[in-house]
């Protein structure tokens, strides 16, 4: 995947949609990799016995794995050095096998500290159309 080339601020308007990212189904293998890769060793994401003990039907994805997908979407649109903020609420659980689509759209343009900022709504949605993450991002454009 190539590194993003920033769009020009003049070409960006409120309502513009980013090209969505459709991810492969969440696998147990991916959760194991993220457990090691992120340093979040909470067994609830990788050990089904532990998850059941705490009332869950199965292991489920780390919220931060899905937030990383939001980050991938934003940096597929602008270079990372132009990202000023990324935030999200985790609104529902992502289960093994879920197919997540990451989408984003421009919600505003504003000036701050001599920069032109573009605000985005970004989210992860599962195969049933349910949002799993509802977030926002802010990027600086020239």
């Amino acid at each position: 995947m190539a590194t993003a080339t920033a769009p020009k601020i003049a070409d960006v308007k409120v309502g513009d949609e980013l090209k969505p990212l459709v991810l492969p189904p969440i696998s147990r293998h991916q959760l194991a990799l993220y457990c090691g890769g992120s340093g979040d060793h909470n067994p609830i994401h990788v050990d089904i016995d532990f998850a059941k003990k705490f009332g869950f039907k199965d292991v489920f994805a780390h919220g931060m794995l899905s937030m990383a997908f939001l980050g991938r979407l934003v940096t597929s649109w602008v270079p990372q050095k132009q990202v000023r903020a990324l935030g999200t609420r985790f609104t529902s659980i992502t289960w093994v096998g879920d197919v997540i689509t990451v989408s984003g759209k421009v919600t505003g343009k504003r000036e701050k500290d001599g920069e032109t900022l573009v605000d985005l709504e970004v989210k992860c949605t599962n195969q049933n159309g349910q949002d799993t993450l509802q977030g926002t991002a802010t990027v600086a454009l020239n």
Partner: protein
Amino acid sequence: MELDKKLIGHEFKPFTATVEAGKIKLFCKAIGEEAPIYADEEAAKAAGYRGITAPLTFLRALQADDPNKGGLLRLLNVDIGLILHGEQHFEYYAPVVVGDVVTCQEKVVDIYDKKGGALWFVVQEMEMKDQTGKLLAKGRGVTVVRNPDAAKK
């Protein structure tokens, strides 16, 4: 279960973490990130970065380098199986790159409950600075604690 609101304002001991290429490599494999600035120093420099760059949410992985990891759960006396991640927000001031020695300071800024104490929310803020004291990022996270006693009522 009831969380102690007197813990609002608690500051954790700051710690430093060195940003390592190998950790970024595994992190990128896990999240499916293949852009060259996260793997190749020359590509990163050609793109205007100081070196191999940490992905946006890798900051949370740096937080996991805390030698006192799990401090929040010990402070609250809460089992790890009861927590969920409610919210996470980052503000970015400069890219974090391989070789940076990052100092991270975290504190508890709010504790509150909803649904008659069935769910508790712990809000933490953190700041990350590089080896020169320059601010790299700020973070705000919300940890949700499921009250194991709530179902019994």
